[in-house]
């Protein structure tokens, strides 16, 4: 097989959108870092926001109480960024076909896993890998391997979408 054709098969949508997306994600994190020294991930928000509704000690640690308001601003910014993208490049709203039970069960596992594992795709995958942190590299290799295994099993079981 022609190696160039093989490589093109692995990237049927090209790489421009992915590189551009990754650069902007990096620039957003970097802007916050340069201004404040904060290396922001997306999932701590889940716990800091729970502190408004729950008195469990985990959610009411001093660092969480001190960051819970700006983390809401961060997430509202992310939602707004998605909306700006949609207004400029998308025709109307876009809605997933993935079944609700997969979103629900997957969401719960993502919530448990990111908080137990100290970070998610952005905290470990972008910020931790960018920091050349061994902990983050181990976490990323673990979650990517389990995610590929799970997604292939789901596909083999004939669950789609």
């Amino acid at each position, binding site marked *: 097989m022609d190696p160039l054709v093989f490589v093109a098969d692995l990237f049927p949508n*090209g790489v421009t959108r992915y590189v551009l997306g990754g650069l902007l994600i990096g620039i*957003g994190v970097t*802007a916050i870092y340069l*201004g404040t020294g904060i290396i922001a991930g997306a*999932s701590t928000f889940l716990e800091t926001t729970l502190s408004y509704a729950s008195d469990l000690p985990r959610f009411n640690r001093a660092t969480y109480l001190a960051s819970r308001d700006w983390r809401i601003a961060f997430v509202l910014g992310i939602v707004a960024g998605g909306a700006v993208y949609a207004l400029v490049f998308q025709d109307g709203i876009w809605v997933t076909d993935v079944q609700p039970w997969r*979103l629900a069960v997957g969401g719960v*596992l993502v919530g448990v896993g990111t908080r137990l594992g100290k970070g998610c*795709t952005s905290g470990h995958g972008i910020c931790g890998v960018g*920091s050349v942190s061994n902990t983050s590299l181990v976490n990323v290799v673990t979650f990517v391997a389990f995610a590929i295994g799970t997604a292939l099993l789901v596909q083999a079981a004939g669950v789609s979408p």
Partner: protein
Amino acid sequence: MNADRHPLFVPLIFAGGLVFGLGLGFSHMTHPEVVLDFLQLRDLGLLFVMGAGSLVVGGAIAVMSRTTRLAPLTGDVYGRRVKSMDRNVILGGSIFGVGWGLSGICPGAAYASVGIGNYPILIAIAGMFVGAYIQGYWRKIRAKRAVSPTPAE
């Protein structure tokens, strides 16, 4: 809201989040279908999202963490993101991976997905809150067990 915060602190966080969300829009990680295409090895483009993102952030961290300058809006030092290694990093990563592989969505991409009008993703976000709560509750039970007196020998 802290009264002693710089007036530009929250606006910068919001603006950074907006660029971050715009990037998630371009990357199409807001579409669980695209993430599943990656995980089922049909389109490996997401490698470039993590690659480009971590290079930009890594460059900034490498430069700034070697300086003695302080961040203008907080007066904080520029550090690296380094977390301690323990069993939970592996266990949590495994559980996260199963969830990501089942649903095709992760936290940041889920927030941005709300912005593109993908309302069913609210189910996943609700699930993430439930999961984060379960984890906090579990830690409390474990802590209580750890401090309770052991029976006399």
